[in-house]
Each structure stands twice: as C-alpha cells, then as structure tokens.
C-alpha cells in the first residue's frame, strides 16, 4: 500500500477521501458519496454534459481532451448499446495516481461511471484495471458488490427505475492497452492492437456501440463537479484548464509523492517547495513533466513553466499524465534516453513498421552508444529515426517514443558527444539513492 503525503498548497478534491476508509461504502456515503449520482438522476443528460463542460475538465490520462465535449460526441440515438469504459490501465512511466484513487476511493469511480452513463444514455460500464494492480481489483470487486447491494447499481438504481450495470475487468500487462482503442480490443478479449480511427469510440466503440472512454481520475472528478457545480471546479485552475490534478512527483526530490494541486501550479514550487527540493543539494538537470511520453524540460525551462495544458501547449509540448520525474545534475541523459526507449521497445504492439522497427533500432543503437561504442553518425541517426517515427505511426506510442528521445538528443547533445570514442559513461557510479522523506 502506497504512502500518502500532504502539502499546504494542495486542494483536495479527488483526493479528499484518501486515507479516510472510503472503500467502505457507508463511510463513502457519509463523506457525501453517491449524492452526485442522485443529483444527476434529477438532471437532463444535456444538463449533466453542460455542467462538465462548464468545469473545463480535461482528460487526466495524458491527452487532455475536454471531457464534456467527448461525452457530447456520443449520438443520442443508437441501435447498439452504449458503454462507459474506465481506463485504469495506468502504465505511463512516472504515473501512479489512478492507483491511489482506486485504492482509497473506488466508489468515486463507480459514481463517476454512473453519472457518465446518465449523461450519454449508457446502461453498462466497465472498469478496466491493469493486471499488476491485482489488489485494486479485489477492492473494486467489493465496491461494485456493495453498490449493487445498496441498489446504486442494478435494474433500479437509487429507486429511479433506471438501469445501470458496472463490471470490473483486468488487463494482463501491456502499456499499449492504455491507448483507448487498444483498451477496447483488450476488453473484447483480443490482442491490444489499436483500431483505425475514425470511427471514433464515441460513435463505434465497444462491440460496435458508442463508447465513452475516460481515465480513472477524470471520472473520479465528475461527482465533485456535479455536486459542487462545474464553475467551482473550473475556478481552481486557470481559464480552460479547470480543476485540480494529481501530480505524481518522483525521481530526485526529497519528498516524492502524489499531490493534488490546482492546474497552473508552478513547476518550480512543485519541485522545490512541495517536493522539498533535490537531495544532497544537487542541481536540477532535467524534468519529465508528465510521464515518459512528454518532451523533457531543461532546468531553466522547468523552473519557468506552470503546470497546465495551455502553458505547455504554448511551448510546443504537452502536460501529459501528471507524472513529474525530476533528474539531478548527475543523471546520465544517454542512459535515461536508453531506459525510456527500452520501455517503448518492450511495449510496442508491433502493428506498424515505424514503431515496431524504430523502437528496436533506437534501443539497440542506444545500448551500444551508452556502452561507449558509439560513433558520431549515431547521434544524428538516433534523431533521424525518432523524427521519422513522429507522426507516422499507427497510434501515439510511436510519438511517445520519439518525443523524449528527440528532446534528449536535441537538448543534451553534448552528453552524447561525451560518450564518444570509447569513453566510459561520465556519470557512472554517480547515481544516488536518496532516502525518501515522507511527510
């Protein structure tokens, strides 16, 4: 069970029930649970969607697509059943927030699913949890059973005469399945290979029916939005970047942990104040701002940016999944690039040529390069390979592999030069294992 942290700057919305025993349905109800679902039952679907639109809630999985708009894409009439699918396949390196929500507040996800169902006219919801999170599946199974027992799920939810069923589902180890169309394939019992889009899931999704796919954190935010009003949620963050967000701080910081902060929070404060700074008084070298798929930031870039979608968009990057990984001055960026590529090579589904072959050649080249057998041409070739994956692959995994690689080669080229001519890695044995300091 993961440790919890706290900081004075936090605004606890999604995390407000963490550590309060809310896995118990009665405790959850006591803490205002299922009030939002009851309220939603009195609202029209359009009103629910409008409330979510007002909140400026954007997808918390990493892509940041406006949730209300996503829901509005679902056709009102459909010959096939509609579905809500919760993406709990959290696997983006640096990201460990959905795990906390599912561990501490599973009913908030169920409630979010019910509300999404009411908004789009779906009567079934599936909660997909990654295979490694087995203990969370047990928690979720119990939560669903309890919700049925209370009549919150089933043929007559909250006595409204409406029907809604929720099911748990588990993956079995595949990062790619976090991509929404691959997630559907996996749920349908297939290999997690993404689908061709269009059609988009909102029109043709699970088993051919219109499907809303939302991240755990996104759906866990929904009950708060419905209960307290979208405006209140929106006001937590800067314009168009509504709400708070769980930031997963990891790497070289004194106080790693998952902190709920308003969007727009300065990265500098996150690292130095919330995270307690870098251990052993070392200097900052690089920051992965939102999971391993994002453009890495240099220290000056990181210290100047605010954590919201639009601030990142302005710099040509993106906010990502909330996984902030901090690297100190002794981090070898070549090795870091290699480790990232090793991950994408392992997780590439293999469907399309540029990603399947590109990640493999990048990994092989980086292994050789880091081992000191690199030649100058390799540096350009690494960049060339990544560039030729970017925007060319079947799904965003190719981009996710290309982006950090390109940003590392471009921003820390000198470190690559330092590995040339058989020189040993200049950062070898400089690694530190600081003791985490939990609040």
């Amino acid at each position: 069970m993961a440790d919890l942290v706290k900081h004075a700057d936090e605004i606890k919305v999604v995390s407000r029930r963490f550590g309060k025993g809310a896995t118990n349905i009665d405790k959850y109800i006591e803490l205002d649970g299922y009030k939002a679902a009851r309220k939603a039952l009195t609202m029209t679907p359009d009103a629910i969607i409008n409330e979510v639109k007002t909140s400026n809630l954007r997808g918390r999985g990493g892509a940041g697509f406006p949730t209300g708009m996503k829901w509005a894409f679902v056709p009102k009439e459909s010959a096939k059943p509609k579905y809500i699918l919760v993406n709990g396949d959290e696997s983006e390196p640096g990201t460990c927030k959905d795990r906390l929500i599912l561990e501490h507040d599973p009913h908030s996800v169920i409630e979010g699913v019910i509300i999404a169902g009411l908004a789009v006219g779906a009567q079934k919801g599936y909660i997909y949890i990654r295979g490694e999170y087995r203990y969370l599946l047990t928690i979720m199974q119990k939560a669903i059973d309890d919700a049925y027992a209370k009549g919150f799920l089933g043929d007559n939810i909250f006595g409204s005469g409406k029907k809604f069923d929720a099911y748990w589902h588990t993956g079995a180890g595949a990062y790619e399945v976090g991509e929404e169309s691959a997630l559907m394939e996996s749920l349908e019992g297939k290999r997690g290979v993404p689908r061709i889009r269009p059609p988009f899931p909102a029109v043709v999704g699970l088993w051919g029916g219109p499907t809303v796919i939302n991240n755990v954190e996104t759906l866990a935010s929904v009950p708060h939005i419905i209960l307290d009003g979208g405006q209140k949620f929106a006001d937590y963050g800067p314009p168009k970047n509504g709400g708070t967000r769980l930031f997963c701080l990891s790497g070289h910081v004194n106080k790693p942990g998952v902190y709920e902060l308003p969007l727009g929070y300065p990265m500098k404060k996150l690292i130095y104040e919330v995270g307690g700074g870098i251990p052993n008084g070392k200097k900052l070298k690089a920051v992965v701002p939102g999971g391993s798929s994002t453009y890495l930031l240099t220290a000056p870039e990181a210290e100047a940016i605010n954590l919201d979608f639009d601030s990142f968009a302005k710099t040509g990057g993106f906010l990502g999944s909330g996984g902030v990984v901090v690297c100190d001055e002794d981090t070898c960026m070549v090795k870091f690039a290699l480790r990232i590529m090793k991950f994408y090579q392992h997780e590439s589904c293999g469907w399309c040529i540029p990603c399947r072959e590109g990640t493999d050649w990048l990994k092989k080249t980086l292994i050789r390069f880091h081992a000191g057998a690199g030649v100058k041409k390799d540096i350009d070739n690494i960049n060339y390979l990544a560039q030729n994956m970017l925007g060319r692959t079947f799904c965003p995994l190719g981009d996710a592999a290309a982006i950090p690689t390109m940003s590392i080669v471009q921003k820390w080229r000198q470190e690559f030069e330092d590995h040339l001519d058989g020189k040993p890695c200049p950062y070898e044995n400089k690694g530190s294992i600081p003791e985490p300091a939990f609040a």
Partner: protein
Amino acid sequence: MFSEQLSKKFDKMVTNYPTKRSALVPMLLFAQDEVGHLSDEVIANIAKRVELTDLEVRNVISYYSLLHTKPMGKYHVQVCTNISCLLRGGEEVFEHCKQKLGIGHKQTQASGLFSLEEVECLGACSWAPAVQVNYDFHENLTPERMDKVLEQYAKK
C-alpha cells in the same frame, strides 16, 4: 482442471459481456494464478469456454507480458527499473536480486522457489524503487530492504 470456485467464476464472467471472448484476458490471468502457468491443457480448456481456437488464445496470451506458458517460480520477483525507479536505485536492486537469487532476467531457480524479471513501470513511481513479488508491492527499497523481502518469502 480448475477449482470449482474458479470454474464458477469463469461461468459468471463470460456472461458479463456481449461476447464470450471478452472475458478471455482476465480468465487467463486467473487460470495462471491457480495453475501456475498457461499449459496446453489450460489453453484448450479456456479456448472452449470462450469459443475460440487454441491459436486465437495463444495469439492473445503471447501479447500480454503477465501471461506465461512456461512454469515460473513460486515467487515471481519483478523489479522495476523504469525511469523513476532508475533514478532511485532500481538497477542496484535488480543487480542485488540477481546476486542473491543466483538467477538472471526471466530465469527461475532450480528449486522453483524464485524467478526473476526486470519489468516495466509498476505504477509505484513516487515510492520508487519498487518490486512486485507475485502481486504484492514492495516499495522504497534498498538492497538491504530487498534482502528482508526475499527472506520473508523464503520463510513462507
């Protein structure tokens, strides 16, 4: 092949979806948990339950990294060395496990007690470095703490 309880669970699971095969991935994982690995017999049995060919089931199994067709150790030690863990000593923990267990990546001890695997991000980044033994998380590890974890399993 499976315990009565698991059989019943499977019977229920295939009804949770519009198509039987939708239950496939969880079924495979649960079957592996009970039997130890996905043997030919397990594959044939599950294929029948979800009305697929053995080939289709194998296609799916080979896609997911948690699914194995060969026996693993009783305790499968999975060490994350992805970025957050890397920065906090994940590789050292992995190296330590190799030494301590006398086996390498994706290897199993002759006794069948432990097997070892270097794995990708486990979702424990803020509590890095992390290891999963079977499904149990062990976090904020150092080589010394890892020893205690291994001892704890060896004693079980």
